């Protein structure tokens, strides 16, 4: 049975931009799983929005939905879908709107939460959940309504490995129940066993392709080590080097964390840091842990953004963290890029910090060129895709050339090409004496880092890792 179809869809956001969709076609039947891949900012999420609210778009072509079709949508950033304060109320919200009898709700809500592996009391505040947990919560909020078609926007980026495994198992059971799925995903390998149809969104059309190889650690970023840099990137590197010549790098630690129990005041500690940890100007450190382990909380504490955390054990630039005191020496990329974007255009967003700290405004153009985002210079950062927002937020920090960078899940929403560009800039910054701490759900094999910190079972530990120099991992790097 056909549930939804897009036929000959032509669409563009405005006259100044090119076509997003050009004669795009897609048909979804009951029990099918479709996966759509494509470059960052190519319009993948727009397909989902078009299916859920076609009346909001001025398009040519035809959108056909089966009568009384119920569609569930989980967006890339679950925060923008959250309406209530507690997880029970959030999942029950849809039921309330459908006037389901109150006595039936607890059972339905509990079942939905159990299906997504979120076995927490109904009264748990949503603010205490990690982003990955919020993503699962939003899936539960959709499942409780028993939709026939479920749309998922980039689940891999938001979930840890265990979360992906649990989600895969859940999706298998949903498909067995004849639910249809459309998954937008840069890493389709993670959901290979489920997917019936692979699509690549290219040139405004969906091109069918065969199943990619299953994900392996070495190939998790497709062809990363093999791919040569585009010629323009090499020239940009030279230009960049002339803007910011290599500096004499100090090896003294920029960040030190003494042994302590980390957590919010008057609450159970999130984890214990048993050994002293430090990051120097020449180091790139990867911090991994599952959803809710405390990665973002630690990064926010290092910035000085958590007033209800005991910061006695943390020192950055030899000082106790406090918001605002480090100025442009410190750059912090939040997990939700939209929280740090506020200017009306991309270029003014990048130039804001440069003006504030009296730095050359040309640095904004340099970083945009390095990321090959110059074409978005005059676009509004608020209307860009999630991945593009991540890049712009990163660029707005990187263009000040900070001495220490904290990046919370910087690769979410990025395709392989942009991921390569981002990693290349990180290496360049690192080589110029910028200490970098990256929080991520999982190990990024192609990322060259000197230390690996891992949070597991309430312990923050330093993992042993074979030395992986820049030259080995990035033969094309300087």
């Amino acid at each position, binding site marked *: 049975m056909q549930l939804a179809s897009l036929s000959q869809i032509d669409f563009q956001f405005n006259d100044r931009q090119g076509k997003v969709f050009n004669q795009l076609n897609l048909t979804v039947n009951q029990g099918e799983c479709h996966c759509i891949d494509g470059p960052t900012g190519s319009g993948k999420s727009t397909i989902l929005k078009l299916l859920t609210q076609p009346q909001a778009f001025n398009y040519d072509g035809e959108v056909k939905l089966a009568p009384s079709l119920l569609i569930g949508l989980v967006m890339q950033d679950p925060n923008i879908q959250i309406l209530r304060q507690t997880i029970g109320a959030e999942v029950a919200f849809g039921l309330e709107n459908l006037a389901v009898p109150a006595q039936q709700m607890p059972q339905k809500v509990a079942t939905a939460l159990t299906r997504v592996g979120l076995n927490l009391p109904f009264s748990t505040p949503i603010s205490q959940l990690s982003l990955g947990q919020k993503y699962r919560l939003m899936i539960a909020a959709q499942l409780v309504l028993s939709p026939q078609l479920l749309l998922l926007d980039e689940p891999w980026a938001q979930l840890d490995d265990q979360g992906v495994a649990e989600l895969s198992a859940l999706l298998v059971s949903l498909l067995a129940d004849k639910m249809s799925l459309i998954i937008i995903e840069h890493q389709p390998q993670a959901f290979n066993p489920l997917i019936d149809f692979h699509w690549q969104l290219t040139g405004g059309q969906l091109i069918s392709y065969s199943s990619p190889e299953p994900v392996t650690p070495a190939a998790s970023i497709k062809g990363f080590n093999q791919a040569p840099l585009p010629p323009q990137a090499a020239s940009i590197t030279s230009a960049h080097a002339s803007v910011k010549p290599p500096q004499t790098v100090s090896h003294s630690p920029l960040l030190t964390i003494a042994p302590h129990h980390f957590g919010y005041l008057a609450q159970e500690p999130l984890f214990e840091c048993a050994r002293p940890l430090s990051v120097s100007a020449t180091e790139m450190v990867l911090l991994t842990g599952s959803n809710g382990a405390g990665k973002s909380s630690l990064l926010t504490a290092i910035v000085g953004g958590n007033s209800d955390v005991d910061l006695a054990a943390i020192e950055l630039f030899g000082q106790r963290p406090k918001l605002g005191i480090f100025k442009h020496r410190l750059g912090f990329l939040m997990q939700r890029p939209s929280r740090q974007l506020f200017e009306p*255009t991309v270029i003014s967003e990048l130039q804001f910090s440069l003006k504030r700290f009296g730095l050359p405004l040309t640095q904004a153009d340099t970083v945009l060129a390095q990321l090959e985002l110059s074409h978005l210079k005059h676009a*509004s*950062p608020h*209307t860009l895709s999630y991945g593009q927002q991540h890049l712009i937020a990163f660029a707005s920090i990187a263009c000040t050339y900070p001495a220490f960078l904290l990046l919370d899940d910087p690769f979410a929403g990025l395709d392989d090409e942009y991921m390569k560009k981002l990693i290349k800039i990180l290496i360049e910054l690192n080589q110029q004496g910028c200490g970098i701490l990256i929080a991520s759900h999982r190990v990024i094999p192609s990322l060259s880092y000197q230390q690996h910190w891992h949070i597991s079972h309430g312990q923050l530990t330093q993992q042993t890792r074979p030395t992986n120099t820049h030259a080995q991992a990035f033969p094309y790097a300087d």
Partner: protein
Amino acid sequence: MKLSFNLQDALFIGFCATLLVAIKSMMRLKLGLSGHSMLLMTFFYLICYGVVGKKGCITVCGLVTGILAMMLSVGKGGPVLIIKFGLPALAMDLTLLFIAGLFSFRWQSLILAATASIAWGLKSGIGHLLAGMTLQVALAKFGLEVVQGGFFALIAALLVPSVLNRLQAHDLVTPAVMNKPSQTPENHKD
């Protein structure tokens, strides 16, 4: 010339009028500065014009504001409130008949702010004459009030383009006339 408003236009006009009255009633500023009410009034009228961009939209916004203010007793004057809010709006719309499309939105805003201030001063001047003030004194008062009201109205006019810019950047509104100096409101949005 197209005078009809669609639902979206009507809702936005109502939104501007309601917000103007609501803010006025909540703040109840007693600054002792004559003309400061022109700041909010001009600001919302120009925002309304920038977004809706159709002839008559400011007048409708002004009349709705006046009626709302009268019904909710925001300000003194009873039915005179309709004239107080409606007259500057009408003056702005009449001015637009001559200047729409000739200047950039920023310059249009400044000219409309000046016109609204004159209309606002005129209302006070007529009131003074009706109260028995001599023509000479009433004229002096009129001039003073136009200057005072004009000061605040011009501040509002300077704010409006950047506010609309930011609203547009967040995809909250689609300004009909901003950044399109060569287009008149009605030919842009039919």
